């Protein structure tokens, strides 16, 4: 394991220190907790927005704390959901009197920990709503789908809605609508290594790739041999578009997301093909995000996320 770290037990703490050292004018850390909060929080009259999950997905989630985005992010250990006590303190720290929305990715650990925190906060009289993101179509059963890079769209759209002063009910409703209109799928070319374990999460042969791998290295749909980027992109896009109903002329936003060690050059090559395929189907590409948004440490590969837009979602995305 060749990593720029000190002690594996310290990676999350030291990373958060680094984030604060980089942006002391915008961010603060809740004392003693693995939580990054906007410096202005709590903001009166604005719904508080919290996301979080295991670490190792940077820039998710602390990287999305800021104006028109999140008020706070809770960081668990690497690939491990954060605990309810940390989430509860975060809720308290961002509640400006208008309630708090929790943006949760659909993993049993995240769901349970955020649930417990929401119950505790509600018991203390804070209004809390949750939106569960389930965008990874590599999992068959809809209810069991994992939350992956599409979560970024929920951060952004709910963030703008909250900034406009919308109520908790309204922000939650927009966030849920966003989540329901997102499909994602990834492909992995090489595994990542959790610092504490020191061993790669899975193994792939020299010429092997895995379609549908999750962002913690969860099993995907199938192993294949390496193929040209265009072919791979087409396969992923077909899977996604098969799940979504698009009529000619409708609009979409796309994230071509790097999983950690795939060069931006390759992401643009993939994005080029994705854009071409949308065009062929007369789907209008209104917004593109190409880069690392939801990573899996140094995993190689990428994911494609499509958000189907309507006028409301589009206006909040920009």
């Amino acid at each position, binding site marked *: 394991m060749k990593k720029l770290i000190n002690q594996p037990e310290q990676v999350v703490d030291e990373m958060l220190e680094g984030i604060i050292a980089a942006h002391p004018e915008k961010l603060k850390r809740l004392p003693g907790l693995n939580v990054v909060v906007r410096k202005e929080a709590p903001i009166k009259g604005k719904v508080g927005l919290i996301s979080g999950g295991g670490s190792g997905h940077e820039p998710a989630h602390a990287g999305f704390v800021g104006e028109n985005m999140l008020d706070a992010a809770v960081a668990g250990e690497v690939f491990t959901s954060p605990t309810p*006590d940390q989430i509860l303190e975060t809720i308290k720290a961002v509640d400006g009197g208008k309630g708090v929305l929790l943006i949760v990715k659909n993993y049993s650990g995240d769901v349970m920990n955020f649930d417990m925190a929401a119950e505790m906060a509600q018991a203390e009289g804070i209004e809390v709503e949750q939106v569960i993101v389930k965008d990874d179509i590599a999992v068959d059963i809809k209810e069991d789908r994992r939350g992956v890079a599409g979560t970024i769209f929920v951060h952004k759209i709910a963030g703008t809605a909250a900034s406009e002063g919308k109520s908790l009910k309204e922000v939650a409703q927009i966030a849920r609508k966003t989540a329901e209109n997102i499909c994602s799928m990834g492909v992995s070319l090489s595994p990542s290594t959790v610092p504490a374990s020191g061993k790669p999460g899975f193994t792939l042969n020299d010429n092997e790739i895995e379609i549908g791998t999750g962002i913690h290295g*969860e099993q995907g749909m199938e192993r294949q041999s390496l193929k040209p980027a265009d072919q791979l992109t087409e396969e992923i896009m077909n899977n996604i578009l098969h799940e979504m109903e698009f009529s000619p002329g409708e609009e979409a936003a796309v994230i071509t997301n790097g999983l950690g060690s795939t060069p931006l050059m390759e992401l643009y090559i993939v994005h080029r093909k994705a854009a071409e395929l949308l065009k062929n189907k007369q789907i209008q590409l209104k917004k593109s995000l190409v880069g690392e948004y939801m990573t899996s440490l140094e995993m190689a590969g990428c994911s494609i996320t499509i958000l189907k837009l309507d006028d409301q979602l589009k206006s909040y995305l920009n």
Partner: protein
Amino acid sequence: MQLTVEALQRWIINTNEKMQENKGYLSELDQAIGDGDHGHNMARGFQEVVNKIEGNSFEEAGSLFKQVAMTLISKVGGAAGPLYGTAFLKASDEWKEKTTIDQEALGKGMEAAIAGIKTRGKAQEGDKTMLDVWGPIHAYVTTQPLQREKLKKTAKEAMEKTKEMTAKKGRAAYFGERSAEHVDPGAYSSYLVFEALAESITNEGDANG
């Protein structure tokens, strides 16, 4: 059988020792059908529990297990944290004010714990989770006189049975039928919990005492 608060405390300390010893193995099990952190999660959480309870003496079982539960909830994380935490929290409610736990109280505590796990995790027995150890142990505790070796055997067999099961809940569910060649890591950590319980019973003298 009567377990004093001290014996219960030793149960937890003994559980921690087993988690530390089996940290690597538990994470390996989790690497096969999950994300490879279960051993680290359990070892981190139980170490904190022991840091909190060791040296302290508790008047009754309720406050001991509330402390255990709250520490697990705030230190384990992942799926295991809320589940083990909820389990011990529900048991602590049952054991409030009790200075000793007899077999009946043990059964009642486990019943509450299992109900807590089920509510929190929305899983059933047979879904290839820790429940598949807790369930059989509960059945044994509520129907037969407790014996150290029998308890161990029951836990071990239940844990081993999860190997054949197809996961329906938790990360292992993503592996679908391919999960059916591996023991569930949460079932294994629960087996360690009850192995430690069995050993506590012996420490009290006769297993049926």
